[in-house]
């Protein structure tokens, strides 16, 4: 059926690699104390997500994920890490209240994740009767410029306002140079 005998195993291995990179990157991003390792975890998570998007029949979004998340978001966070000193101070003598807060956070997030996972496994997802298009890049482009053109224009406006707002905010507290 397939081109050569081992191809199913290779595909399964690649999928497992993408899953492991996503989950491992997310855990690395939230569990380390140094922020720079956290950013590296976010980049690893984005790489794994790009692999998952490829398996979901969307190579265009896999490319965009790498370009935007690793190329823009992580690099911007690294710039902020260089400008501020974001490392968490070491906890001296962890008090019971701190431990209680950590246990509460773990409980809340575990309950949320387990509930979502249980719901998504036990919901009977319906398969659509027919597809309107094939979800390729030309189909995305046609949809962006016809049905979703207003949202497309609005998001360019949002990005412009974000750039100007970031410039104004980051400039405001700067002291003038001594003359």
């Amino acid at each position, binding site marked *: 059926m397939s081109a050569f005998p081992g191809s199913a195993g290779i*595909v399964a291995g690649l999928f497992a690699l993408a*899953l492991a990179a996503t*989950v491992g990157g*997310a855990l690395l*991003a*939230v569990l380390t104390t140094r*922020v720079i390792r*956290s950013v590296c975890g976010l980049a690893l998570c*984005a790489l794994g*997500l790009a692999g*998952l*998007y490829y398996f*979901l029949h*969307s190579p*265009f*979004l896999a490319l965009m994920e790498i370009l*935007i*998340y690793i190329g*823009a*978001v992580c690099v*911007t*966070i690294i710039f*902020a*890490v260089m*400008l*501020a*000193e*974001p*490392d*968490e101070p070491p906890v001296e003598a962890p008090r019971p209240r701190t431990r209680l*807060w950590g246990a509460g*956070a773990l409980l*809340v997030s575990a309950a949320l*994740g*387990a509930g979502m996972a249980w719901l*998504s*496994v036990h919901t009977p*997802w*319906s398969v*659509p009767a*027919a*597809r*309107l*298009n*094939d979800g390729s890049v030309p*189909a*995305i482009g046609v*949809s962006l410029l016809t049905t*979703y053109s207003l*949202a497309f224009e609005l*998001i360019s406006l*949002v*990005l412009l*306002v974000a*750039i100007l*707002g*970031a410039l104004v905010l*980051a400039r405001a*507290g*700067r002291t003038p140079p001594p003359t």
Partner: protein
Amino acid sequence: MTPLHDQPAAYLVTAAVLLAAGVFGLLRRRTLIGMLIAGELILSAASLNFMALNRFTAPDPAVGQIFVLFIMGLAAAEVAIALSLVIAVYRNYRSVVTRDLSELKG
């Protein structure tokens, strides 16, 4: 038996794990940049959910991809604004630890 990468449950459970990790980080982190990274994880979980349901149940497979593109654009704008706020806060307080930023506390 369909392989694992053709079942929606694999992607949806992964998205749930990402959401749980993001919420845990948001509650647990003590610096603003750490909380921002956890927020990015939550946005990624939403994107993965959209893409999985787009692939398996949507009649128009372009809609989910466009929505995820918009999420990515908004995430980039959010990161730019949040980081410039972090820089401004650091200039005033010399710290980005959330415990130190309590000037409005009564």
